[in-house]
C-alpha cells in the first residue's frame, strides 16, 4: 500500500480537520487531540455532494469518533466512513499515520 506524505502534523490544529489532495482525491484529515493520531475519510458530504467534511466538528458518540457535517450535521465515522444517520450514505475511509512528525495517507481506501 502506497502512503503519500501530505503535511506536518503541526499544520493541523488539535481538535480540527484539514483537506488534502491525495492522488487526485479530496481527503478530509482529522487530528482529534494533541496526540499524534490522525484519521482520513472522503471530504465529500454525500448528502449535499459538496467538499466540506474537513470543516465539520469532531464528535464522540457510542465511544467512537465521528465528524458532523458542517452543512446538515449528519455524522460520519472517522475510522470506517459509516454514516450514522443512513448507511446508504457511507463514505470512503483511508489509512492514515504519522511518521516522524509528518502525516501520511494511503491513496487507496481501506
Amino acid at each position, binding site marked *: 500500500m502506497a502512503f503519500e506524505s501530505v503535511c506536518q502534523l503541526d*499544520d493541523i490544529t488539535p481538535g480540527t480537520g484539514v483537506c488534502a489532495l491525495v492522488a487526485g*482525491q*479530496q481527503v478530509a*484529515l482529522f487530528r482529534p487531540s494533541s496526540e499524534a493520531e490522525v484519521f482520513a475519510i472522503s471530504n465529500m458530504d454525500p448528502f449535499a455532494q459538496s*467538499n466540506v467534511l474537513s470543516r465539520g466538528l469532531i464528535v464522540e458518540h457510542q465511544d467512537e469518533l465521528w465528524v458532523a457535517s458542517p452543512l446538515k450535521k449528519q455524522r460520519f465515522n472517522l475510522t470506517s466512513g459509516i454514516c450514522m444517520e443512513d448507511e446508504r450514505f457511507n463514505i470512503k475511509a483511508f489509512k492514515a499515520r504519522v511518521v516522524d512528525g509528518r502525516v501520511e495517507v494511503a491513496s487507496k481506501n481501506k
Partner: protein
Amino acid sequence: MSKQKLVVIGNGMVGHRYIEDLVEKAEAGAFDITVFCEEPRLAYDRVHLSSYFSHHTADELSLVKEGFYDKHGINVLVGERAININRDSRIVYSSSGREVQYDKLILATGSYPFVPPIKGNDGKDCFVYRTIEDLKAIEANAKHSKTGVVVGGGLLGLEAAGALKALGLETHVVEFAPKLMAEQLDQAGGDQLRKKIERMGVQVHTSKNTLEIATKGEQARNTMVFADDTQLETDLVVFSAGIRPRDNLAKQMALDIAPRGGVAINDYCQTSDEHIYAIGECASWHNTFFGLVAPGYKMATVAVDHLLGLDSKFEGADMSAKLKLLGVKVGSIGDANGRTPGCKSFMYHNDEQDVYKRIIVSEDGKKLLGAVLVGDTSDYGDLLQLKLNEIDLPEHPDTLILPAHAGAEKPSLGADALPETAVICSCFDVTKGKIAQAVAAGHHTLADIKAETNAGTGCGGCLPLVTSVLNAELAKSGIEVKNDLCEHFAYSRQELFHLIRIEEIKTFDALLEKYGKGYGCEVCKPAVGSMLASAWGEHILKPELVKLHDTNDNFLGNIQKDGTYSVIPRMAGGEVTPQALKVLAEVAAEYNLYTKITGAQRIGLFGAQKDDLPAIWGKLIDAGYETGQAYAKALRMAKTCVGSTWCRYGVQDSVGLGVRIENRYKGIRTPHKMKFGVSGCTRECAEAQGKDLGIIATDAGWNMYVCGNGGMKPRHADLLASDLDEATLMQYIDRFMMFYIRTAAPLQRTSVWLENMEGGIDYLREVIMNDKLGINQQLETDVAKLVDEFQCEWTEAINDEQQLKRFSHFINSDLRDDNVVFVPAREQHRPANNKEKAAHQKGDILHVELEA
C-alpha cells in the same frame, strides 16, 4: 340528515368561545351557522381592553385566529344587528333587512354599562368603558383634556382609571360606597388599595353620591356636584358603575326575564323557549348574572354540550379573581367580607410594603372560605385551590399568608394534593386531569402543555401551578425531568454557565475534565464555545477554541450548500454611505459574488470560496466596513424605519437608536441568533414586535418589547416596559440580554425561552425592572465588559498570519475546490445542481444514489 341551522347573536368573548367549542366538538359540517356581530370587528379580548392604549391596535386584542370563520364555513355578519325575532316561525330579522331561519338560537348579547341617572350624564364629555370604539372616543377627548373622573370604584372603574392615567390625565375615582372594590374586598383591603393608588397620583373620593354634571367650571369644562355639597371639576367623565344584562331582545320576544334582569336560564343554559339558549352576561341563572368572563365561558361549554347531547351542567361559578389594577396586585376569593356565620379570620398587614392579606376560615378552622390579598397575590393560586377543592387546612392556617421571614415554613400545596377534577386554569377550564392526560400523551414541556391544553395561555396566573402539575405527573410516570446538555455533560446550559463564571473556567478541556466525560459532541462543543465567548469575551479564533466552533465561526462566514461562504458586512441600523456601497459593488464584481438583500435586510455577497475570504474582507475593511456576524449566534442586526429625522410621522430618531444599540451589542455571543427592531412611531414599519427585542417610539420615550419572533413559529413580542428614556432602556436591554445568555437552553430563541419560563413575562419583568433576583448590577457589569472588549473578528483575522493559513482549501496544494461550479441565473449565477455538475465532476465520484 340535513344540517341544523344555528344562529348566534353576539360575537363577544363568550359568543366566540361558544363557536370555538362547537367546531371543536361537533362533526365538521353538521351545522349551518350564522353569527350576528354588531360591533365593527370580530370578537376581541375585553378583559385586557385598557392594553389598547399601550398597543394601539385592535388586532392585538383580537381573539379570532385569522381565517377561523371562513375555514369552518361560518357566516359572520359584521356590523349587523339582530332587531327582532319571530319564535313561531323561528326567524331572526336583522338591521339590514335580512331574514335568517334557525333551528336553535343562541343569545350572547352581553351587557351594557350602567350609567347612573344623574343630570347631565349624557353630555359630550361623558363616556362609558366597554368597547374599542368607547376607548377611541375617550382617547380623542383626552387630547384636549387635563382632568378625568371615573364614576365607579369597582374592578372596571379602576381599570378605566388606569387608562385615563396612561393618557396623561389628572385622574380621580368617585365611588358611591365607602370603599373601593366593595364586591371583592373587605374594608381594610379596600383602604390598603386606596392608599397605594393614591400614592400613584390617582385621587379617590368614596361615599360620594353624584347629583349633577354641570357643563361649566373654572379650571375645567365640567363640574360634578355631590350630595354632600362638595364639587369636583373635570374635563371628562367615564361611567363605570357596573353592568346590566342586555336582555331587551329577549324581552321583546317574551322570554322569561329574571327579577333583577337577565334572560332566565336553566342548568343547561336554555331559556324558557327550549330552542333558545342564553349564555354570558345577558343570562341569569338562579336569579344571578355573572359579570366575569370565566362563568360565561363555562356557560358556552354547557350550551354546546347540551346541543350535542353531551352531559354537562352549569352549577354556578366561583367569582374569585386575581388582577392587577393600576399596577397594584389584588386578589379576592370566596367570602372576602367574612359574612359566613361563625367564621374566623387571620390577617397580615405590612404598611411598609403596602401588603394586606386576610384569610377567612370555617368555624372549625378546617376549610378556607375566602381571602383578600392586596399588594401581594403570590399566595392566590394555592389559596384558590384550597377553597375550590375543600382541602383541609394546615394546623396553623396563618402560615399560609405569613412571609418567609416570619419563621414558620409555608405549607406548600403539592400538585399531588389536588384531586383530578381541580381546575388549574380557570380561563380555559383546564383540570389537573386534563393536564395529566396531555403528559401521558407525550407532551412533556411547559410549551407543549400550553399548546395542547391552552392552560396558562389566558391570564397566565396559573403557570406556576401548571408547571408543578406537569413536573409531578412526569415524576409519577417515571420520566425524569432532565435538562442535561448532552451525553457528555449532566448539567443544563444554565448550570454550566454558572460553573464557568463562578470557577472562572476558560477552556472546554478544563470544563470537560471537571464536569463532563468523554470527548464532546456537536451539541456541547459549540454551546460551550458560545458560553466561553459570552462569559469571557474570548476571541472566537483563539487556537484552543477553534475546535469547538461550527465552520461558520471558524471561517467567519455562513457556509452555503456548495461549501462556499457568504460575506455580509455590518450596516448598523441599515445605514450605508454611497461611497461604501460602491466598494461593496466593486468587490462583488471582482470576486464574482452573487448579490442580494438578505432576510435580515442586509446586503449579502454569496459564493465566496474560502481562500478568497481574507482578501475580500481586507478590501471591505479598508473601505470602513466591519464584520456583520451573519455567521454567528449573536446579534444580527437592528432593523429600523426611517424615523423622525426624515419621516413626517416619526416621533423619535429610530435610526439613531438602532445604530447605537446595534453597535453596543454586536459581537456578543448569545444562545441563538438575535434580531432587533426599532420603529420611530406606532405605525411600526420596522416590525419590531416580531423581533427578539423590539423598540417602538412614543411621544414620551420608548416602549420595549421582548421575545418576539418572525421565523419558524411567529410570536408577537410582549410589552416589557413603556415610555422609557434611553438610559433606562439601555439598562433594561443589558439585563435582558445577559439574563437570556445566562439562562436559555442551547440554540433556544428568546421566544421559546420566554414560553418556557415559569411565570412568563411577569416574572421577566420582576427580574429586569424590580431586580427580583438581585443580579442586575452583575448583569450590567458583564455586558459592559463585553462591550468594551469588542473587536472586529475579520480585522483581527486578516492581521494574523497564523489564521490565514487555515483559509486555503487544501493543506498540500494551491488548487481550489473544482466541485464549486456556478451556472447563470437571472443575470447573476447560482451553484450548479448535481446533474449540471456531473459534466464537470472528476476524481472522487461517489457510488451513492442521490436525488436530482
